């Protein structure tokens, strides 16, 4: 051994060569600018300097005076961090949109467009016939942003289309990035300039349709493969052009708005989410305040519209006050009316007209979202969440549940499951997780859903659409895999599926509106527990490490957790039965009433 060490030293010495440093720089390699030259001036000069680590040189005068930073700026920060990126195979692709749906970084986009738009496309640009019944004769492209991809591989994992002659090859596969970087960057730019889908011609009730909508949350700095961001991105696709977001402190506030760049983006019309971060302890109230403000503004605007009845004409007034804004078509029509309204008002000079001008936009339905993690919703901000759902106001709460305080480094929250290790629960959490959904359901007036896109992407989509459509408080609790679970992140969606199959994360939707339609409000969307929880848990370091540190305690806690699962499932089942009985009673009462005449007549 000693002899071999000597040999190693000798061989090293034999291979040492002196490098002479040239007197002058002779290389013609240059660094790319931190931000492309075509970026807006503020991005180039201010944000670019920050990205370059040169923030101290920026004069205070260059900073926004009220702290409002422009959104849609992550697109200029080409981080270029992945050595491998996905490559699309149009001939194998079934255009299901799943890869785009799960991409945590909004790197994969799909578009359906008229074939003529391909004129002038780069040579390597891929296109195929669109397979959408709504869009006959159109072309389809799935494009990857090569310099924004993090290489997390979730897209490849989720892709269901395999080559029949070589099943390891899917419709999307990872390949070395450097050789295709330039070409794909060029394709990406061309792709961005293709027309966006007409939202009014599309119902986003399937995964493939939803993924034709432009994400207004893109290229965030979340960990590669983050389980939270796909949900956030989905909300931005469905409602981003009219949403106002209150974000609790946590991972989502960091990747959602850490300087210098902002992932919240705008569409071609300049519309996008208005976003602000508040504290851990008041975020739900912060969002409620947004709702109350909008409601008040809307109320005053409606009063004013009525006052201007004569100038505006009854058609416009009726339309403005009673428009159906339940889908993108309705929203577009209302926006058109508001434009007309503004045009009419420009000719009127009165304080009321000026008020209405400034409030006119609140006549278009806004979507208020209150977003945060489990540390916020279950613990520190729980009182506020409870207060807000009890208010009955129309807000949508999205809980990105990683079952642990992720951003601060994995401290246990009340969402941390029994038997998992976390900071402050280093011996494995002894108590079961709080059932936040059940607590919210107890009001009977709150829309509640529990989702995990890795188990059912469609159920997630339905829940988020229903939550938004519900005219009252909604709570969507979303399973989010996280690096704090100690998992191979490319298997994050598999873990989601196993969590549901093990019964640890039963999926359901509770929609109070259904009761009045004579339907059971509680729908269980996953099957009874079918695998032991160990099959899920022991893929995760947070559970496994307890086996290694205290095997007996691990076994004991896991056995208790297994009991929790059975008990919870039975509990939900009994709830479904109870509601079913209530629905049946309603039906019977209604039938009795119609056959016997009204109670008054009987009396």
């Amino acid at each position, binding site marked *: 051994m000693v002899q071999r060490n000597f040999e190693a030293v000798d061989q090293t010495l034999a291979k040492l060569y002196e490098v002479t440093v040239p007197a002058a720089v002779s290389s013609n390699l240059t660094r790319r600018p931190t931000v492309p030259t075509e970026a807006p001036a503020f991005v180039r000069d201010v944000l670019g300097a920050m990205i370059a680590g040169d923030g101290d040189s920026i004069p205070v005068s260059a900073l926004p005076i009220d702290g409002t930073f422009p959104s849609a700026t992550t697109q200029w920060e080409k981080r270029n961090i992945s050595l491998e990126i996905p490559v699309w195979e149009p001939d194998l692709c079934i255009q299901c949109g799943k890869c785009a749906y799960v991409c945590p970084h909004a790197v994969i986009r799909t578009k359906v467009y008229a074939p003529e738009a391909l004129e002038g496309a780069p040579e390597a640009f891929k296109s195929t016939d669109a397979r959408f019944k709504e869009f006959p004769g159109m072309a389809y492209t799935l494009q990857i942003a090569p310099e924004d991809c993090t290489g997390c591989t979730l897209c490849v994992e989720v892709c269901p289309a*395999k080559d029949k002659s070589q*099943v390891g090859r899917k419709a999307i596969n990872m390949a070395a990035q450097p050789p295709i970087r330039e070409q794909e960057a060029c394709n990406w730019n061309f792709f961005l300039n293709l027309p966006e889908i007409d939202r009014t011609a599309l119902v986003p009730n399937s995964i493939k349709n939803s993924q034709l909508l432009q994400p207004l949350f893109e290229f965030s700095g979340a*960990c590669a493969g983050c389980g939270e961001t796909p949900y956030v991105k989905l909300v931005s696709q469905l409602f981003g052009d009219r949403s106002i977001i209150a974000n609790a402190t946590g991972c989502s506030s*960091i990747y959602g708005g850490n300087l210098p760049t902002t992932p919240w983006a705008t569409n071609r019309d300049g519309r996008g989410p208005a976003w602000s971060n508040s504290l851990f302890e008041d975020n739900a109230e912060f969002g409620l305040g947004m709702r109350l403000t909008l409601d008040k503004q809307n109320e005053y605007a409606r009063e004013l519209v009525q006052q201007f009845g004569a100038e505006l004409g009854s058609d416009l007034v009726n339309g403005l006050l009673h428009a159906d804004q339940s889908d993108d078509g309705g929203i577009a029509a209302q926006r058109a009316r508001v434009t007309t309204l503004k045009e009419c008002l420009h000719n009127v000079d009165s304080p009321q007209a000026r008020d209405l001008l400034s409030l006119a936009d609140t006549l278009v339905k806004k979507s208020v979202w209150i977003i945060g993690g489990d540390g916020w919703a279950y613990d520190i901000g729980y009182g506020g969440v409870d207060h807000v759902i009890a208010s009955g106001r129309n807000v949508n709460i999205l809980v990105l549940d990683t079952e642990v305080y*992720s*951003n*601060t*480094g*994995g401290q246990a929250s009340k969402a941390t499951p029994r038997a998992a*290790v*976390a*900071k402050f629960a*280093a011996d494995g959490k002894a108590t079961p997780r709080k059932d936040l959904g059940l607590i919210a359901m107890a009001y009977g007036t709150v829309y509640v859903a529990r989702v995990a896109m890795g188990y059912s992407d469609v159920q997630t989509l339905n829940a988020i659409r229903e939550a938004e459509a519900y005219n009252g408080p909604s709570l969507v609790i979303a399973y989010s895999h996280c*690096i*704090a679970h*100690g*998992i191979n992140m490319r298997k994050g969606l598999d873990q989601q599926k196993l969590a549901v199959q093990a019964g640890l994360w039963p999926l359901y939707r509770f929609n109070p509106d259904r009761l009045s339609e004579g339907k059971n409000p509680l729908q269980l969307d996953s099957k009874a527990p079918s695998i032991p929880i160990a099959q899920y848990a022991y893929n995760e*370091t*947070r559970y*496994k*490490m307890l086996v*290694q*540190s*205290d*095997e007996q305690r691990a076994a004991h806690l896991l056995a208790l957790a297994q009991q929790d699962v059975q008990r919870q499932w039975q509990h939900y089942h009994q709830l479904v039965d109870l509601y079913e009985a209530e629905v049946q009673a309603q039906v019977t009462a209604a039938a009795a009433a119609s056959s016997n005449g009204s109670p008054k007549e009987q009396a």
Partner: protein
Amino acid sequence: MDLSTTYLGLSLKNPIVASASPISERVERVKRLEECGAAAVVMYSLFEEQIVHESLELDYYLNRGTESFPEALSYIPDLPDMGRYSVGPEVYLEQIRLLKEAVSIPVIASLNGVSTGGWIKYAQKMEQAGADAIELNIYYLPVDPELTSSELEAAYVQLVRDVRASVSIPLAVKLSPFFTALPHFARSLAEAGADGLVLFNRFYQPDFDLDTLDVVPNLRLSTSDELRLPLRWISLLYGRVNVDFALTTGVHTAQDVLKAMMAGANVAMMTSALLRHSEGHVQQVLSDMTGWMESYEYESIRQMQGSMSQRAIENPAALERTNYIKVLNSFQEVSGGPLPTMNFSLR
């Protein structure tokens, strides 16, 4: 009725041994095996590769993302006493100790190593922890076309020699059926110091899922039909290679155990049967065996051991390969029936 036998120099009250399986992960189950009459137990294998993999994996996940973000220096807690992490063979060694305390039947440890150093180190630790014997489970799937069978066999023989030189408790080697010249290889192992051969390990073959086009694990328990392969080979090797034999794969009933004994095995091992019917099954098999031996007037197990080995039977060719042609021909004559294979008829 004398059911006793010896295996690897250990005196056993009967020939039924629980082969390596997860049953031995639980002390209560091994106690129950002893109560039901099992004569010895082989523990689940300690896989060196798994230990190495697990400690690397644990280290990776415990440290991933650390020091990368000022608000969170780590994502998973350090235990106050990191020494408490028992990644490595400690859990296994502790289990040997616990089992030795809990039962009085012999406990045989099972080892699957990767490196020579690993095999020796863990074998020594097993001996120190109190194992009565060690079974070397040389489970390895050679897929490298450059690797020849003679190289592989030589490596195994060297391995047995190395381990033999470093421990003094008895050694058994558990083999797969996939060796070309098995009798020669078996003899080399015996010469290298193996006290017993465990024939044959049963590999779990993965399956294809046609819906998802995935390769999926598929654990199927054995049936008595699978007894015939080890039965034949023990018959052939008995008396030719001077070691003890343990028959594993396909032992489910009293008949299976008796056949194993007649072929020349010292013990018959069970896993599938115990997983399927649980520990109480041993009791049933023992009582059926005694019943059979009584009605056919056998006095002891020793009396029958090797009685149907190739050397002892009337027509030794019945066990050799040429017989295959005869069987095939007879199959053509009774066409339509299932293909008959080697079996003993216990009258």
